């Protein structure tokens, strides 16, 4: 969970968030490119989550497995839900939705890292 992929995910989330917030500030609706970027980013997050799930079967299972699982489900679903809402909102607010979704992902990843670092093993 603390590997370079987490760092890449957080950096990508922040870069995308800045982009979407800028688009929203300039009164731009999410473009095809924006939604595509969200889809690619969702895939990146999905890889991170799958690796974390695979890690659950290893020897360093987090003590609070239930909470960890809850955060994993939230993390993998988050950007797709945001993109779904943004697609229904072809205005500047759609861009803001994508921006907020990308801002929340780093928080989720950091929480996952916190929970993962407490292992009962």
């Amino acid at each position: 969970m603390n590997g370079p992929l987490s760092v890449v995910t957080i950096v990508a989330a922040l870069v995308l968030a800045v982009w979407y917030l800028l688009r929203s500030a300039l009164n731009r609706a999410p473009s095809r490119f924006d939604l595509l970027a969200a889809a690619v980013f969702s895939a990146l997050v999905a890889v991170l989550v799958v690796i974390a799930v695979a890690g659950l079967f290893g020897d360093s299972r987090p003590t609070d497995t239930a909470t960890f699982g809850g955060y994993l489900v939230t993390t993998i679903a988050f950007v797709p839900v945001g993109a779904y809402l943004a697609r229904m909102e072809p205005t500047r607010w759609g861009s803001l939705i994508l921006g907020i979704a990308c801002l929340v992902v780093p928080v989720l990843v950091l929480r996952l890292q916190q929970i993962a670092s407490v292992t009962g093993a």
Partner: protein
Amino acid sequence: MPEASTRPQDAALGSGLGRVLLLVYGIFALSASARALVQITTKFSEAPLAYLLSAFAGLVYISATVGLAVGGTRGRLIALVSCSIELIGVLAVGILSIADAVDFPDDSVWSRFGSGYGYVPLVLPFIGLWWIWRHRPRLETPA
């Protein structure tokens, strides 16, 4: 761009900025109730008052989310009541958690005005109420 300000008066409560609010309220509905669930099932006796408030906050966020999503007269009323309770809640719990830190260890969404959540819980009801107020039903029929 001018078209941003010409939002039709009868546009749905859950569109435009309302859809952003829907997402943010959804996030808080999820995080507050999930947090309360974990707290109540694992360590309820440590701070029952704070954890019950966590659960209550979760319910308030859920009903606000539902109200925004449902829209119409009823949805607007649900959202209005929820946001009002939310505002009172975050202010009351915020003040109490500073004045009486024993009963309120740093453990709920509203503790210390939501500082653990970037003070978003403090700002959110104001934006929510402003948005609902902007969507108050107009009696006069537009010409």
